[in-house]
């Protein structure tokens, strides 16, 4: 059952991204260009998502188990460390260059555009590089 809900949630997430316009890199760049001709649509995407999620998330945060009996796995870190800030700043630079973040990247991967294949391969390489650097640091 949890496999089914996970699959359905992924599908709904992807349909939402496509409908919202997040899957179009040109539209994302239009949102990030506040000094030019600004398209504020994506602020509504985030706003709509947060409004829809606030109550379920609030409920979930007070549970130890999910409805289907899985442990509630919420992040426990609290500190505002340099990794959080530096990593997020780097991510924003990459987002600003191409107008693509990880969710939309997967949601348009199978649409047949070569650009998204190049982007996703580079993104996976970046993630693997992080894992390699982390495991080296741990030993």
């Amino acid at each position, binding site marked *: 059952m949890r496999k089914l809900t996970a699959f359905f949630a992924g599908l709904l*997430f992807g*349909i939402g991204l496509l409908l919202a316009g997040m899957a179009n890199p040109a539209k994302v760049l239009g949102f990030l260009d506040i000094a030019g001709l600004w398209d504020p649509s994506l602020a509504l995407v985030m706003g709509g998502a947060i409004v*829809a999620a606030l109550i379920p998330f609030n409920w979930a945060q007070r549970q130890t188990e999910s409805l289907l009996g899985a442990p509630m796995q919420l992040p426990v870190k609290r500190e505002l460390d340099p990794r959080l800030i530096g990593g997020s700043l780097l991510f924003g630079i990459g987002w600003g*260059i191409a107008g693509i973040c990880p969710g939309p990247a997967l949601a348009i991967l199978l649409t047949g555009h070569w650009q998204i294949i190049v982007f996703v391969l580079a993104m996976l390489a*970046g*993630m693997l590089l992080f894992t390699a650097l982390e495991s080296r640091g741990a030993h």
Partner: protein
Amino acid sequence: MTLDWLNFTPWSSLAGGVMIGLAASILLVANGRIAGISGLIGSLLQRGGDGRAEKALFLLGLLLAPLLWGLFSALPVIEFQTGTLGLIAAGLLVGIGTRYGSGCTSGHGVCGISRLSPRSMVATLCFMASGFATVFVIRHLLGA
């Protein structure tokens, strides 16, 4: 600041956003997991960890969304404005940055803010600010 009324899509963006929020809520309420795309991909790239099948199935649903959409209507416009080198640089930065920063637009921007997490609010401010700054530099300083 000048608004781009021609490309402004308030209703579809709001509706799409609500669907994203509901999807994230389903994964949390039913499966007890945060729908952070970079975190899910990253954890599948590492060895071990629990719930690999659930994580993979969520991502599979995301991958198949355009195929489901295509059964009912034409796909929305997808326009790239970046060349090969830019795409590679952007992909690397997004990959490394989201892993060091523990999240992206979904994990921090949607789920984290919905949990009222101060860490996620700071992360979201950071990637928004550097995203705005990057587009400003590329479009208005370099004139690309």
